[in-house]
């Protein structure tokens, strides 16, 4: 796989995991904070 597309794939994976982590934190805040 060429480096550029490998990088795009890695970037996508990192962003996905961060999005999931932030979504969880957002859910925690909106459910339990007034």
């Amino acid at each position, binding site marked *: 796989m060429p480096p550029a597309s490998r990088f795009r794939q890695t970037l996508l994976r*990192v962003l996905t995991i961060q999005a999931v982590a932030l979504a969880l*934190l957002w859910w*925690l805040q909106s459910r339990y904070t007034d």
Partner: protein
Amino acid sequence: MHWINWVIVAVYLVVVVWDGLRRTRGTTNIEGYFLANRSLPWWAVGLSVMATQLSAVTLIGTTGQGATDGLRFVQFYFGLPIAMVILGVTLVPFLHGAKVYTAYEYLERRFDPRTRSLTSFLFLLSRGMSCGTIIAAPAVVFSAIFGWDLTWSVALIGIPTIIYTVLGGVQAVTWADVKQMVVIVAAIVAIVVVLLLRMPVPLDDALAIAGATGRLRVFDFSFSLTDTYTFWSGILGGTFLMLSYFGTDQSQVQRYLAARSVDEARSSLLMSAYWKIPLQALILLMGVLIFLFYLFQPPPLLYNPAHERRVVAAEPAAYAALQERYAGSLATRDRAAREVARLRGLDDAAGAAAAMGVFREHEAAVGVIRTEALSAAERVTGQNSKDVNYIIPRFVLDHLPLGMAGLFLAAVLAAAMSSIAAELNSLSTATVIDFYKRWYRPEGSDAHYLKVSKVSTALWGGFACVVATYAATLGSLIEVVNRFGSFFYGSILGVFLLAMIRRARAGGAFFGLLAGMGTVAAVSFGLPEISFLWHNVIGAVTVVAVGLMISRGEGPGGPIEPAVHSRGQA
């Protein structure tokens, strides 16, 4: 503490030191000692990167911050994954491909010796002092909790670390880091499980109570240059801070220079990109759970036992009266919290909301008494009590089942030792490669440099222990050095950014660095309300702008591509 807990701590120390001694066998040359012959797998380097960043201060202080302030501190790390991805495509291939020992060595190839020497010297100055404070922070907590002399606490943390770092070099440091990360994560998970099991009300109700106190508020979208913990400070300022730390600080760069290949070095950094925010959130959540635990179990009025003893001795009657008021307030707060849970269980939304209002009043009353106690402690001792750092140690020693206090203590030691070992290893590398070999003795044998490297590591270890022992009296000096350090962190990043710009020249880099440091110093003194996170942005941008301007008047520069390794230059 029960003897079984001490046995667990002793076993941890013996295993770490023994493993370090075992690693000396594979370390016969300087490249092996400093870079493990560039042979380490990505996952070991990745765990080492994480262990280096996670110090005892993170484990103890961040948990305390979670208990008192909640989850919002996690925003500080929002820039980390972005920084790791940027480093993966920019600096990592440059530095790994250049086959350098230190990040600063690359700057000589790209620019000139003065830029290399200045950046390396600034690293030695700030990291040499900060290494002492990394030992001092947990040592002071141990001394207060167990009543030990500070020198013994420093020795317990410093001596085993110096032994395995001196003898085993980066091999010992990295493989010890792997084990230490396992101990740290095991202790965090075990404590979270115990806290969940011991919660006397359903978790959903407990989290609603924590939410009512604002401890589950994570995101703050206000844009402020003065507040460190906002979404935008984390994303923008945090990215620059993490780029500086992971991209230009030798204690981190050396971790991934030891990886087998550029790809493995990148992967090791991405491990932090994946796991840092979830791990940090878990540590803060552990603090929130401790706050919830202490709603239903009376907490100490002062968590710092040394300060508590001194206040009791100096003002016995006043402190006893304060404790009586505290006990009364805790009991009413406990009842109010249980009432919230009961009404939520009955699906009585209106009743639960009213009970939550009552709970908030009692929580505020408890806070007022705590503030009075902290003021008394400061008045009597003449010191900032830093009580927040004693919340988790007191909880662990007073409430955890047998053996878990030992596991936690081992985890605190592991967090401290992993950071110190990486610092010592990198301080020695910069000393030997950037100064001894570069300026004093360029043509020595490998055996000679190996011997000098071990002596240098031991000397830095001794220096760090001395700084740690006198940390209380050196307090203001350390603060000055740390403040000075913040002047050049972003500026050094600016020099590395310049190194990747083709038209940047040596004079531009050197004078740009000076301009960046001067600008940050001016902002720091002139506008002290601006958060330190923005100093890195200001420093880096100034260096690049001034550096490019000065470079316009200079001749052709050096190559920006990774150069072929030249030992004479190292």
